[in-house]
């Protein structure tokens, strides 16, 4: 039986504004928060920034957080790169890279949770960033279905919290905020170069991202099938 004293949760953690606020939020309700940082080996830089942020969290609440940096390079190759050109022809959008990467992270998170008997999973998705394909409310609800099959409860604790509220909360607790440009803070979390390139037209020109719902749904469902096979194979082989 899960009680307050032994309730554990995993959190996808970059160390940015959203995931740090989510970690603080979860620390109030769970006995242990597992912070999971992933890298895919293709343009994910400064991964150690998330470790620095995790250390700041540990200073606030000792023994509450554990931080792991996990490679998804092999899975990313199988799930995304091997079908990259084919997928690009089919979906005609660069979102296949970002959403594919996120699906790999969720797949690894399921394996992590199953291995460690953790019933709850969260991430720092936010409605403020719903131009990002993986943070659209549609994607969030489809991803929750992926977890449901494994009896893991997936939720997004700071989805409706505004960016300004998050900034205030972190500043109040004296977290490092990094170098500020506009209302973005640089240098506190890892960088994803392909992601930056993909969202650049939106940032530079306010260009519509055009993430069509039917295509996003189709993509997630297709990758979910692959994820299921991967998880089952992984668990069978120990």
């Amino acid at each position, binding site marked *: 039986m899960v009680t307050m004293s032994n309730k554990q949760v995993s959190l996808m953690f970059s160390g940015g504004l959203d995931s740090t606020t989510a970690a603080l939020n979860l620390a109030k309700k769970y006995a242990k928060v597992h912070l999971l940082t992933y890298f895919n080996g293709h343009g994910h830089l400064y991964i150690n920034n998330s470790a620095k942020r995790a250390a700041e969290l540990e200073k606030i609440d000792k023994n509450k957080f554990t931080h792991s940096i996990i490679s998804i390079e092999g899975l990313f190759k199988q799930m995304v790169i091997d079908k990259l050109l084919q997928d690009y022809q089919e979906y005609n959008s660069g979102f296949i890279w970002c959403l594919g990467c996120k699906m790999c992270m969720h797949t690894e998170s399921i394996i992590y949770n199953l291995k460690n008997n953790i019933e709850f999973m969260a991430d720092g998705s936010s409605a403020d960033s719903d131009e990002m394909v993986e943070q*659209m409310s549609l994607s969030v609800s489809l991803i929750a279905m992926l977890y449901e099959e494994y009896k893991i409860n997936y939720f997004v604790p700071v989805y409706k919290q505004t960016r300004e509220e998050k900034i205030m909360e972190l500043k109040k607790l004296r977290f490092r905020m990094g170098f500020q440009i506009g209302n973005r803070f640089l240098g506190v979390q890892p960088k994803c170069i392909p992601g930056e390139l993909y969202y*650049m037209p939106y940032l530079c020109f306010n*260009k519509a*991202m055009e993430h069509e719902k039917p295509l996003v749904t189709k993509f997630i469902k297709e990758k979910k099938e692959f994820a299921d096979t991967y998880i089952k194979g992984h668990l069978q082989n120990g």
Partner: protein
Amino acid sequence: MGRCCDGRNAYQPISEIRYYAGFILFVLLHLNFKLTLFLRNYLIKRYPYYKILKNFHNAYFLQTLKEIKKRQGMCVGNKCTPGATPDEE
């Protein structure tokens, strides 16, 4: 709720100056990425994904460049290009 899936700043008007500055930045960063990919392949012999990544990046870069040149999906100087105005839900 007028818009879905495009981002909250989508279709917000930008100035001509911002458009040209953004255009230069966009091209420079993509060329830099292309060069980095090439060097990675050159320095790490037999970088196994080079061809796939190169082809993907070329296709993505050229398609996006075409859209940006047509100013598709954006409003520059209060002038929205055909098809750039979002459908109302």
